[in-house]
């Protein structure tokens, strides 16, 4: 098995819009994500979570600091890091099925295999019967599930997920949590998972990193791996509730600071 640990080293990022002042979005972020570890990122809106993910994805150049995956410095995007974007970024001219198999086509997987895989994924995200629909004909939650399926299709070693369940209703979200955990058991991956939902973060992640209000820094990292038993049991323990409370307070403090800026 190849290793796929991630390391952020003093990463800063400044946006320079053509008009207006430069915005310092990230300020010296350092974070280690171990191989096959699931790390959730929490932080107030606008603190730079997506920015951090885009840098890790290799979509924007890292100007200050370094990011490396599996010991190699990130210089550009690649299918070793699967990304689920906050705004889905589905290809509107492709059907659900075509969106899902697109990455597999690029890997030159033979057609029958591709189609079989697509069918499995469509079932996994509960979109049976929508394979031939276009994204414009789907609800927000359905689009999000297509985006998840499309990324899972290429079975990347590293998963970067930007609020991947944000548009889902509570029931579907719970289902997706179970599916994700099952996938992690079958084929463990290194995951960086951005969310606003503290309970979701504690439930899914091995560790939760809380970011400060903009400019984003890592404020605190909390271990959330259940000390005993499974995750399904974990959710009913005192330990879980305490961690949720603790993290919730951290995030709230930062959210208030972010508000105060305006």
């Amino acid at each position, binding site marked *: 098995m190849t290793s796929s640990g991630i390391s952020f080293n003093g990463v800063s990022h400044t946006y320079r819009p053509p008009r207006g002042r430069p915005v310092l979005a990230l300020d010296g972020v350092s974070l280690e994500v171990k191989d096959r570890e699931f790390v959730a990122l929490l932080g107030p809106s606008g603190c730079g979570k997506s920015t951090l993910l885009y840098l890790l994805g290799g979509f924007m150049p890292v100007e200050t600091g370094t990011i490396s995956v599996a010991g190699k410095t990130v210089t*550009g995007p690649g299918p070793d890091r699967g990304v689920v974007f906050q705004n889905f*970024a589905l290809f509107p001219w492709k059907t659900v099925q075509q969106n899902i198999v697109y990455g597999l086509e*690029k890997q030159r997987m033979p057609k029958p295999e591709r189609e079989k895989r697509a069918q499995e994924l469509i079932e996994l995200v509960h979109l049976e019967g929508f394979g031939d629909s276009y994204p414009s004909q789907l609800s927000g939650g359905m689009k999000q599930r297509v985006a998840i399926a499309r990324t899972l299709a290429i079975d990347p070693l590293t998963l970067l997920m930007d609020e991947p369940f944000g548009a889902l209703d509570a029931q579907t979200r719970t289902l997706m949590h179970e599916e994700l955990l099952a996938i992690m058991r079958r084929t463990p991956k290194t995951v960086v998972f951005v969310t606003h939902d503290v309970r979701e973060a504690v439930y899914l992640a091995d560790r939760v990193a809380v970011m400060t209000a903009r400019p984003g820094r890592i404020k605190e990292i909390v271990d959330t791996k259940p000390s005993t038993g499974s995750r399904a049991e974990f959710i009913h323990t005192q330990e879980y509730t305490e961690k949720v409370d603790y993290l919730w307070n951290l995030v709230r403090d930062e959210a208030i600071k972010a508000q105060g800026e305006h």
Partner: protein
Amino acid sequence: MERVNANWRRTLLRSSSVILLAVAWEWGARMHFVSDFLLPSLSSVLTRLFEDIVSGDILVGLGLTMLRTLAGFTIAAAAGIVIGITIARIRVIRWFFDPVVSVGNPLPKIAFLPIFILWFGVFDWSKIAMVAFSSVFPVVVATWAATESVDKYLLWSAESLGVSKRQLLWQIVLPAAMPQVFTGLQIALPISLIVVIICEMTMGGQGLGGSMMTSMRFADSPGVFSGIVAIAIVGSLVVKAMELIRKRLLVWHEENAH
């Protein structure tokens, strides 16, 4: 049966203003508000049109006109899309074309007519070149804008799925730009029609525009009007065809999601 009736009613309703104008025309002409020469009745114009169709006269003219239109339009479409894309993606090309487009776009292209005659002669090529030159600008502008405004997240997600930089243009940029590019083509097509008629009127060489001028010289006003009716019908059919192609091509687009 119900469906068919409903469809007919909808079509009738949508063309009711045209029908109203036609009735007003016929009525006005029959009341002799103006002389027959200035405004021949619609029925006489239609009769004339029918005769011209049967004799084949108008079909030859129409064929020539449409050939010139479509030839010029196709050149404009192909050149416009290529220029639009390269402007958006290649710096030198942009440096060269940016001022050319800003000066050329609002320019009344018909001003170049004498020069085009000088360069290409009075036959088909000068007309086709004129049509292409007049129609290329909206295609360039639309393609340029479309290519530049392709959602960066689409490019990013394609790259993270393993699409190479070289494949991005064909596989992501072009399909994403398609709706706007097609709008450019839909603007260019009527321009092609207008310009071809003007060229034929001023340069002769048959075609609908040419025969309308001939009719006018012979004081044959039903002939002029039947030319107008013919070009109106063909023009609206061609524009309608573009709309249908658009629906077909862009089934995926929000505009077609019901």
